[in-house]
């Protein structure tokens, strides 16, 4: 059975492509050396003290931005803890702390939340 021109073209093309796939050009030692020198130069530039300082500064800003978030999260967790750990069915009794009506609200907050708020005051 005779093949059509298109089929012959596809056959020829596929054989050519297959040959090309196994015929990738190699890297010369000189070219490899240039590529490695480029990498070394860029890496050295990016890891200079100035570049590292920029990175730390960015991290510090992100950490500072997280402080109010962590304080709010701690306060929320404290509220949830109170809700689940009140021994009596009378919620008011749970908040009364015995006979005293005066209490420090910070007693509900873990240390991390307080430090977060104090940082906020310093920053602000």
């Amino acid at each position, binding site marked *: *059975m*005779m*093949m059509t*021109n*298109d089929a*012959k*073209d*596809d*056959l*020829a*093309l596929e*054989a*050519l*492509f297959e*040959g*090309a*796939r196994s*015929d*990738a*050009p*190699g*890297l010369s030692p000189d*070219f*490899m050396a*240039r*590529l*490695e020198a*480029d*990498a*070394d130069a*860029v*890496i050295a530039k*990016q*890891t200079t003290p100035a570049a590292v300082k920029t*990175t730390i500064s960015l991290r510090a800003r992100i950490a500072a931005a997280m402080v109010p978030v962590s304080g709010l999260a701690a306060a929320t967790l404290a509220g949830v803890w109170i809700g689940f750990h009140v021994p009596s069915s009378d919620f008011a009794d749970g908040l009364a702390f015995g006979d005293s009506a005066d209490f420090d609200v910070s007693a509900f907050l873990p240390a991390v939340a307080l430090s977060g708020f104090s940082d906020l005051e310093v920053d602000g």
Partner: protein
Amino acid sequence: MQHANPEAAPDVAPDAALLVAVANGDASAARVLIERLAPRLLSHATRVLSDRTEAEDVVQETLVRLWKVAPEWRQGEAKVSTWCFRVLVNLCTDKLRARKPTVDIDAIAEPAADLQSVVEQMTDTARRDALNGALATLPERQRQAVVLRHIEERSNPEIAEIMDIGVEAVESLVARGKRALGAALRGKRAELGYDDDQ
């Protein structure tokens, strides 16, 4: 199974993990990436540009851009190799558009020696020259798409990402490119040793 820690097994670490190591100042990770990426990038650039020196230049520029982007690399957004091919394709496009179209398929595809007497020797070199010569006659976008699809064996969706076009446009470019290649090579088929009715 791939190892995530490039320091433990750099040869099998994912490209993205190696790039993070590069961002942290690890030059050995950069060397592994060079060995992994550069041959494929150079292969594509050489076929598209038909000029080894220019091909090396665009590969070099592509990798420099990769090292520079390493500290800001966002994991999971793109494959490192896809990103590199995208940069490379654009650099090749710039090079090609700066040229005048001077390619002559007959001048390139015709082997210099007498085909009748060197049929056995003709195979690899002549076929490679014929393919490269025919590729050089294609419009730039078709050429890049055909090489990515049929020589680099990239998927159509990945080529779409590399070339910043839709998958249907890729299919169209590849199909038209193959037809044009076939037309360019049809007259050479016998010389290339593919003329049997198989």
